[in-house]
């Protein structure tokens, strides 16, 4: 059984936000009207968060692409009263939109603030809904949604694997939309339990860290800290 995880190399990230748009297009996330957008009510399952450090002239701004961490010990799951969010055997923390009652306990419990509540009916000005991805349901008003690691892609990949009589989904057969779109190839995805996978290799890098590890959430999104500038004597 795979344990799906993502590695994001902050050294390579260009903060272009291609992942943000790729996710919205793939997952039928509606774009808000300008008015609601200005209120900060955009939904984006992955967002790029700036972390400014220091002041001029020693300033540094780090950018952190922030999807759901798919924690191994997810605080959102324990508070859900109706089992609308759960973690499956493969480690994906899922939101069953149809079960969600919109109590928003999970959005409060999530220390990474990556859960979004649908304050509005999703609206696509005609004919933008033509581009809807038929593999992903459109969430109604009043439910919480979040990154699913593009779980629908796993469903398809698994269907293919089963049909071809393979027990497991092959490496690279299942990739979330954000990872696929990444120009500098700063994002990696795969099976953390497979010792030969790129992600498990990178997760053991000395640069690897997890967000808010002290909370004991055990995230499966692993960041690689920015690299050291090359020496000059090479």
């Amino acid at each position, binding site marked *: 059984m795979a344990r799906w995880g993502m590695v994001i190399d902050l050294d390579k990230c260009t903060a272009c936000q291609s992942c943000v748009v790729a996710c919205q297009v793939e997952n039928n996330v509606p774009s808000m009207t300008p008015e609601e957008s200005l209120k900060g009510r955009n939904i984006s399952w992955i967002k790029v968060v700036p972390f400014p450090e220091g002041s001029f002239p020693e300033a540094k701004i780090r950018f952190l692409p922030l999807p759901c961490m798919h924690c191994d010990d997810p605080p959102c799951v324990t508070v859900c009263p109706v*089992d609308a969010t759960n973690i499956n055997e493969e480690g994906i923390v*899922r939101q*069953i939109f149809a079960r969600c009652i919109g109590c928003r306990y999970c959005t409060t419990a999530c220390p990474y603030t990556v859960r979004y509540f649908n304050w509005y009916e999703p609206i696509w000005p005609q004919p933008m809904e033509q581009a809807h991805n038929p593999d992903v349901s*459109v969430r109604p008003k009043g439910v919480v949604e979040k990154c699913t690691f593009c779980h629908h892609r796993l469903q398809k990949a698994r*269907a293919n694997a089963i049909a071809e009589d393979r027990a497991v989904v092959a490496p690279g057969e299942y990739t979330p939309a954000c990872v696929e779109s990444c120009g500098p190839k700063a994002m990696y995805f795969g099976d953390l339990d497979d010792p030969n996978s790129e992600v498990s290799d990178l997760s053991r890098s000395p640069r690897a860290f997890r967000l808010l590890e002290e909370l004991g959430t055990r995230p499966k999104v692993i960041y690689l800290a920015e690299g050291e500038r090359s020496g000059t004597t090479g």
Partner: protein
Amino acid sequence: MADTVQQESQEENAGHRNRLLAGKAFVAAFLLALIWPFTPSIEQPIQYNHQKHIAAGLECSNCHTLYENSAWAGLPTADACAACHAEPVTDSSEEAKLVQMLSEGKPLEWKQVNRVPNHVYFSHKTHAVAGEIECATCHGKMDERTAPPPAPFFEWSMDNCINCHEDRNASVDCNACHR
């Protein structure tokens, strides 16, 4: 056909969004829904005779071209019918209707009978090919049908899905089916 499908789903979405029900009426409807999931009878553009076609040697995949390879089974396009019925081959009045439609270049707008909610991922490929489940298990004996089914043979409820999954030791993980 794509446009019609799209339009239908929009209308449904709009209807769904705007649904306003009084509390009592709702409870009544709900209780009713528990025992009798009401489905209106579905009218197809042509009274297609499965029995005749299957007897004539057609395979399911001749018309439902996708079922072995994708989540969807697929419905035949006018072109598929035109392969044999460009000219009438019988004296059936339904065939005459079809030939007329073909000659006018009208698309064949089949209505989908079996539907799952849009938050469910159902794959024909997984069920029919990998799970080796007979078509008849969910669709009934199509080789005996002389007219299109007016309603689904299988009641598409989560209970029924789960019963079958449990019987066959298939996954009952939410993520396996919900999307």
